[in-house]
């Protein structure tokens, strides 16, 4: 089983690095991570679909400094794997999104834990001796440990997610359209929070209303 999961585990580790430690090129956003995980499991369209919905939930989770935020890349990799496992389409989406969201929070805690450990890896200004080698090795070791953390937390998420999906998925009692409605309601709350963080409805109501009108009416004329 470990060998089967290896590509997704390594992907989880690499994407976890992008979230904070290396580059922040945003490969770690659920939108991209979901699509990449989808390619790995042979279902890129499903991967993007799961990634898009998780992205809408995590639109307002910015990787700012010391804040704790759900780790979107791990959430997306685990969620896509769960969705690809299920044969019932109606249950695949909500269960995968729920597992991804829950595991994203667990991964967020692991980031906090590693940040506490990092101060043991690198020298501090008050230390008795400080050398270039200590600084370089300490820093690179912390980066490597972040990769290990991302891989381990992805592996555990894949195992736990697979157990949940196999146990609960086949008996999912709700129609596909209602399942979709349920997950999109949660995404709508995040969209509202984003509007507030962009300046609020009162301040930007005209722009929002123009966009909304084009979005609702546009497809009818296309």
């Amino acid at each position, binding site marked *: 089983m470990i060998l089967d999961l290896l590509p997704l585990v390594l992907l989880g580790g690499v994407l976890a690095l992008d979230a904070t430690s290396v580059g922040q090129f945003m490969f770690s956003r659920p939108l991209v991570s979901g699509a990449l995980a989808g390619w790995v499991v042979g279902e890129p369209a499903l991967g993007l679909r799961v990634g898009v919905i998780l992205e809408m939930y995590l639109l307002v989770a910015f990787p700012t400094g010391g804040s704790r935020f759900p780790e979107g890349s791990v959430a997306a990799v685990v969620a896509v794997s769960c969705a690809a496992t299920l044969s019932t389409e109606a249950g695949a989406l909500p269960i995968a999104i729920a597992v991804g969201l*829950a595991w994203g929070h667990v991964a967020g805690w692991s980031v906090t834990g590693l940040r506490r450990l990092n101060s043991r890896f690198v020298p501090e200004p008050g230390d008795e001796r400080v050398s270039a080698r200590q600084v370089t090795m300490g820093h*690179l070791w912390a980066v490597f440990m972040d990769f290990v953390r991302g891989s381990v937390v992805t592996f555990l998420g894949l195992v736990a997610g697979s157990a949940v999906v196999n146990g*609960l*998925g086949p008996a999912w009692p709700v129609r596909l359209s209602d399942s979709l409605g*349920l997950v*999109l309601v949660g995404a709508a709350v995040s969209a509202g*929070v984003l509007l507030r963080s962009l300046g609020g409805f009162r301040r930007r109501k005209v722009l929002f209303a123009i966009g909304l009108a084009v979005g609702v009416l546009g497809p009818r004329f296309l």
Partner: protein
Amino acid sequence: MSGTVTRGSVIRIFLRSFVIQGSWNYHTMIGSGFAFAILPALVDIFGSEEEDLEGPLRRHLEHFNAHPYLSSLALGAAVRLEADAEDEEAIKRFKLAVRGPLGSLGDALVWASWLPAVVLVALVLYWLGSPVWLVVSVFLVLYNAGHIGLRIWGFRTGLREGRRVGRHLGKASLGRWTERLRNSATLLLGLLAGLIVSSPGGMGEAGAAWIALGGVGFVAGAVIGHPVWRPASVLIVVAVALLATWGVVQ
């Protein structure tokens, strides 16, 4: 800049700035990453002997935090100050003075404006039915054009201006850019909401009751803001868990 820092070292420092947050910790935040990134310049200026490097390394290991993309500006300026043989206290004071503004400007410009705007472009493309590769590549190319452009601008400005970077930050009108981006993001958010309601595979398919519930959720998010975001996610996870359990029990 005085000729003590080689071109190769300048390139290495810029590349190292991409991993400046690699050892982020609660004591010195990105202080150790800053020392790691500036190390090639310190070796050029002070030599590679341990006792010569110890003092300069200690001052850059101290607590520092800034937005990771804009930290390249502080890094470039610190290289310039070291190359100009500024005294230790002046360098420490400079880093202390810039860390707050670089953090808040970067958070407002990048995390709260540029990133949501580009994510919304990608989400709109998805709901318009674009293929996977197009959605992903438009997001990555567009986002990183701004990201890498900002890092290059910051590093070059820091290297050129040294302690005068504050004046250039003011001239760059980052606040005005933030406002424009937020306007664009709001327009895109409205467009996305409309597309989700009207597109196949969206709320329209789920039915009027779900559209109404989504509207309530959206208004709650817009009125209450961040405090409602986590409970809403938890509520959805709990609802899915209860439904799934109900299905098994049945």
